Every structure is written in C-alpha cells, then in structure tokens.
C-alpha cells in the first residue's frame, strides 16, 4: 500500500462522505424507481413505485390488467431483493459515515469501488427482473401476440400494446446517482491531490 493511500482525506471529501451516508439512509424509506403506464383508457395514468422494501402505487390494478397477456403477478414477497436491499443500503450508509471518521484515502477508495459495483449489479439484477417479467408469460393467456414480449425499459420509454411504459429513477434513485457522482468528483480531486503530494 502506497504512502498516499494512507494519507488523510481532504475536508470536502469527508463532508461528501457524511452527506452520502445520510442520503443513502434516506433512500431506504423513499421510492427508488418509478414505472409510469399510460393508455387511452387510463388518461389518469397508472404508477408503480419501487421502494427498497416494497412495491407501491397501482400494483393491484397493474396485476389485474397483466393477466390478459399472461404476465406474472407482482408481489414484493416473491423477490428476495426487497428483503436484502434495505440492509445493503444501510451498510453503505454506515460505511460512508465511517469514511469520514476513519479518514483514510484507501478506506474511501474501497467504499467507492464497492458502491459502484453495487450500482452495476443492482441494474443488472433489475434488468433480469424486467426481462423475466416481460418474457415469462402464461401460455394460456387470453391475449397472445406472436413475437410480442412485454419487458419494460430499464430506463426510458417503450410502447407495449396499448400501454406506454416510462421507467425512470424516483427521488431515491436520483439521490443514489447523486451520491455516486458526488463521490466520483471528490475522488478525482483526491486523486489529483495525491499526485501532487
């Protein structure tokens, strides 16, 4: 381990770490992702919110509609993610606070690597989840359109039969992204500072 990685952190990095810790703790209780559905018959729109520990919004109505095309019903208890995600977020929140407390570059770097890995794995998991949900259809479904699958977009807009599906991060997701961007920025400044020293 190099000398510089044992160096103390800059003040701004420690502040950023504390903010990140608090932000990630908040993410546990607010919606992270949002899927909005619009159809001619639903001018008021349907919304599903993905929290760390549950699904909220018009889940029952969406389940009712999805039976036509044979999609599985969504129930939070069927996904291990909703059990472990609050703990993972809590873990990263505490770790971020420790970054400020331990005050070592290497400790900060390892948090950042861990957090980026967590972000990537989460998105991969989410994609697989959407894929399965959109492709694994009941063969006896009343409405079967040859070649049609119903995988909602990971992020962005996609037309699925009469429904337009719009998938975007909710406040929690934006907070997580903000944490990532902020910590990456302070990482760059730490890195430049370490080159100078």
């Amino acid at each position: 381990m190099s000398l510089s990685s044992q160096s103390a952190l800059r003040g701004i990095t420690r502040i950023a770490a504390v903010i990140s810790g608090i932000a990630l703790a908040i993410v546990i209780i607010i919606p992270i992702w949002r899927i909005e559905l619009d159809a001619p018959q639903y001018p008021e729109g349907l919304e599903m919110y993905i929290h760390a520990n549950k699904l909220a919004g018009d889940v029952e109505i969406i389940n009712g509609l999805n039976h036509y095309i044979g999609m599985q019903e969504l129930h939070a208890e069927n996904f291990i993610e909703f059990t472990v995600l609050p703990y993972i977020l809590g873990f990263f929140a505490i770790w971020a606070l420790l970054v400020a407390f331990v005050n070592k570059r290497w400790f900060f770097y390892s948090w950042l690597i861990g957090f980026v890995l967590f972000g990537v794995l989460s998105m991969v998991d989410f994609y697989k989840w959407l894929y399965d949900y959109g492709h694994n259809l009941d063969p006896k479904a009343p409405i079967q359109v040859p070649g049609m699958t119903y995988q909602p977009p990971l992020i962005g807009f996609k037309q699925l039969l009469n429904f337009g599906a719009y998938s975007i991060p909710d406040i929690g997701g934006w907070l997580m992204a903000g944490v990532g961007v902020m910590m990456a920025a302070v990482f760059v400044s730490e890195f430049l500072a370490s080159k100078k020293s």
Partner: protein
Amino acid sequence: MTKIQSKFRIAAIGIFSLSTLIGLNSCKPKTAGSAVSGDAAQKVYVAPGEHDEFYSFTSGGFSGQVSVYGIPSGRLFKVLPVFSVDPETGYGYSEESKPMLNTSYGFVPWGDQHHLAVSQTNGESDGRWLFANENNTPRVARLDLTTFTTSEIIEIPNSAGNHSSPFITENTEYVVAGTRFSVPFDDENGDIPINSYAEKFNGAITFIKVNPETGRMNIEFQLKTPAVNYDLSHTGKGPSSGWFFFSSYNTEKAHTLLEVNASQRDKDFILAVNWKKAEEYLKAGKGRKVKTNYVHNVMDENTHTATSTTINEVTVLDILDLEGVCYYIPCPKSPHGTDVDPTGEYIVGSGKLASLIPVFSFSKIQKAIQDKKFDGDFDGIPVINYEAALHGEVQKPGLGPLHTEFDNNGNAYTSFFVSSEVVKWNVKTLQVIDRQPTYYSTGHLTVAGGDTKKPFGKYLVAWNKITKDRYLPTGPELTQSAQLFDISGEKMQLLLDFPTIGEPHYAQIIPASLIKDKQKRIYDINKNSHKYVAKGEDKTKIVREGNKVHVYMTLVRTHITPDNIEGIKIGDEVYFHITNLEQDWDLPHGFSVKGNNNAELLILPGETKTLKWVPNRVGIIPFYCTDFCSALHQEMQGYVRVSPAGSNVPLAYGTGDTAPGAKK
C-alpha cells in the same frame, strides 16, 4: 265637402293606414333566431375533455328522479335514481335497494320529484348533500354528493302532496315539508264527508332535523295548521334567520273545482313562521305525541344494504296554541313562489294570478308585529296589515309571476308563466331593468346559488313548461325545454336551449369546484360488510337453505365465479349475491339472467348487490355481464342448469378448473 277634398281624405286615410300597418309589423316581437346574439356559441362551448364550471341538479318531476347537467354546456351527465325504480342500475329491483322505496303504503315504485336543496353552511351552498322532495306519497330524500346516490328517504306523516319542500335553513338545521293538500290527521277518523274540509281537515308543516355530521334526518316536530294549501317556501337568512316563509292558497277553503273556487279572494297569505320560537315551545313540552305510521329508509354505505324502519309517533304543535310563532302576511292572488333575497331583508311573493309583485320587508314585518298592526285574524292566526309589511310593489312586471331568484348585485329575476318571460328587476328600487322572452312558459328558474346568501350569479336557467317547436319533433310527447341565460351584464343574454328529462321544476346550480374533487371513484372492498359479500374468488360458494339458494358470486375482468351452476330446481328462489372485486376507477360490471322477471344489476367496484331469480322452466339458463367492461367482455358469461322440482341433481358449481365435471 267637395269631391276633391273627399278624394284627398281617402288617400290620406289610405297612407295613414298603410304606415300604421308597417309600423305595427315592425312592433311584432322578434323571433328566437334574432334573440340569440353572436358570441352565444362561444360562451357555452366546453371543449372536448374540458369540464363545465357548474353542476345543475335538476328535478325530474314526474320521472321521480334527479338529473345532473353541466352549465354552461347544458350536457346531461347522469340521471340519479331517487323515487322511481331504475332497471338500468337495479335501483328498486336489487334486494338491497327495495327497502328504499318502501312507504307506509307498501312498496311504491314511482314518485313525483319537484324541488331540490343543496345543503348550506352559513347560508352558502356547501355541496355535501342534496335534498329532494316527493310530492305524491310525501317523502324527502337525501343524496350523498360524493357518490351521487340516494342515502336516505323519510316519509312525511299527516301530509298529502309534499310540495312545499325540501327547503332548508341556513345551516341545514332543518329541511321543511309543507303539505299541499290539507287532510284529516292520521290519528283522526278519515272516513268523513269531503265537504267537511273547512272544519275537519288540517295542514301540516314538518320540520325534519338534519344531523350536522352524518346528514341523517329525523322528524323533530310538525306544526298543525287550519286547512289551506301550502305551496312553496324559503328560509329567512341574516336578519330573518330563524324564520321560514310559506306561501299558501285556497284560503277560500274549497274542496272542489279549485280552479274557480280557490281563486275568489283578492289576497291569500304568506305564512311567516318563527321556527326558533317553535323549538322553544317544543322544548317546553308543548308538543303532543300523535299516533301515525311512517317509514324511514336508510342505505348503509358499508353493507350496501338499505333498511326500512316504521315509526309510529310524531310530535305535533298546534299553531293555535303557539303565541308569537305564526303570522299571516296578505299576498295577492294565490301566491306560488315565496323567495327571500340574499340580505334576508326582502321577501318576494309571486301571486300566480297577480299583475304586480309585492316585496315585503322583514324589518317592517317585525315592527308591525311589535306595534300589533293586524287586520284581525284568519282561522285564529293574526293577519299583518299588508301596507305595514310591504316594502313596495313591482308594477307591471308581466303576467303570472311564479318564482324569483337573486344575483349578487341586488337584482331579482322573476319567471312569468303567462307572458312567457324572465324579468330582471332591482330589489331596492323595484324598477324593471330587463325582460327576455322564454320558449315557452317558464315555471321555475335558477340562478347559480340564487337562493343563498352569496349567489354566484353569472348564469340563469329558465325551466320551461311548454316546448312545441324548439327541437326536432318526436311525436306528440316532447322533451321539456330549458334555456340558459348569461346574466353577467345589464341585459340578460340568451345562450342555449337544452332538453331535459321528466319535467323539471326547481334546480340547484353550484360551482363544480364544491364537489368534483370529493368524488368517490370506488367503494373500498375492505370496508364492505355486506352479509353475503365474497371478498375474493376463493370465498365464492352456494348455500342452499330449503328452497332458497344463496349464490356468493364475484365479478372481475373477465369472468364470473362461479360461472357453471348445477342443482337448481324448479320451486327454488335463487339469490345472486354479487361482489364486484375490481378496485379500479370506472369499472362497473352488470349482471343479468335470461328470462328473469326482474331487472339487471349494475355493480360498482367494491360493491355487493343481490338479484333475485325464480326459475320457471327446466333447461340451461345463461347469465352474463351487461356492462362492456373490457376487451373480453363478451366472454364474461355463465350457465345455470335448472332441473325439475324434486330432481336429485347435486348442487355443484365452479369456474374453469373448479367447474362441475372439469378435468382436474
């Protein structure tokens, strides 16, 4: 006279006559076409997807229902079943709603609905409830404006022709019901000669108390009065708070050919009632319990089931025993409308055969009572001197004044049946400001908030009695016609004709903002405590109790559970208790059975309703959802197998994998 002179004279007469004729011709009233000015279409145009600014709750008259229009577009949104059965929704046909139409005479499938009142707080519309009268079998209903359904109906004892109703006090403390027909009271022998009217018949004015939280009605007391006909009424407000004014006619006490015999006197009366004081007499125990028989029907929002309770007693105060409560104010020629202006100071009487409109002053009435300026009494009730009570008369307003409403600028608007017009006049100065023809013969008229302390003004609707050529003809029976006026300017501007259901009498127009955001979209199925609810397909079942068969059924897009039923026999009474499992907006399901001697049901999300069916032939009987609920609506169906009486086909039922005989 020379020949030339006489020729000249003939020519002069000719020219004069011609010019007079031309002049007369130009005096001919304008046609309807020219009465509508250029920007009318723009003022009533509500673009697709946009909402109207006002709701109009309009009485349905002999249809027994209430209709809901948007103003200014004049579009009909809904007909609300209140006093008449409605096979479209199953109102009066479902087992749950049958008690709503129960009366002391048994089940009455029809009513005559004349007047409406939106509940008020501090004299302003609050948009919580809508009260509706029934004329024929005297009743008052309360509708909930979060669901637009009838919550409650109470019958009025000792009355006949509940016309002077359901007018309310400033804070909806009371709904009143004044009888049109005087009749013998329920505790007296009614088997008497009709010509004993003057001696043996009585009038009743009923005060129905309204629970300020729940809206629940109960008859607090009745005033027993000498025999006359009560016509209309309105509450006092502001300074006249605590008083109620009832128009009366037939002070001639005719019991036959009222057309002539009840039109003899120059003046009939407005009855001023100090109800606050009547309440004191009630508290002091002046009331007498009178034996009677009337019903109170209540729809429970959680069980979705109505109950009908019979009540055997009512507290009656005889107005002859109450000093300082009742006074007669003379009013010309069989008064119809009695309307109180927004300040509460002026009371307008409309004698339907009069050629002027008297406006009474509340402060003058009070002074006259204080100074005892009475012209004797009528039937023992003091008659206040006409001049002493009078603020002034509107001279030559038109012919046949019926009703008056008010705007927020001190103006009154009176409808005229005979001269077929609406006349705008100033309440203080009594000067006529404008008159516009109506098509034809206006009965009631409504200004938005026009009977409250704070009228919204802006629009006036004339509810006309005669239609003739206003629309494409539809055979001898024509729609009724309403006319919308813009009253925001000095002159009233005709904007729109629109057709109405039944025969509208009074209406209430209130801003949409008062109620549209409080609308329920569904009934919460978790709160459904119906005796036969099935909260899920796994809760469906069929229970046989002798020849009564209870089917606990569910509907959800797009199937019925159970949809195959076997083991029903001739002689059975089948009750389909159907729960709509949907919890999404605008997803009713319907339900009907082939050959059922009954209506269909329309079941809203989260609701349970029961349809009775008595099968009368052996065979396969289909049933299906009648409301196009979704893409696979045509698949939403089922079969009942009906076997002969005494058959041993076992009771079996299910849907899909659980259907009788299905391969597991």
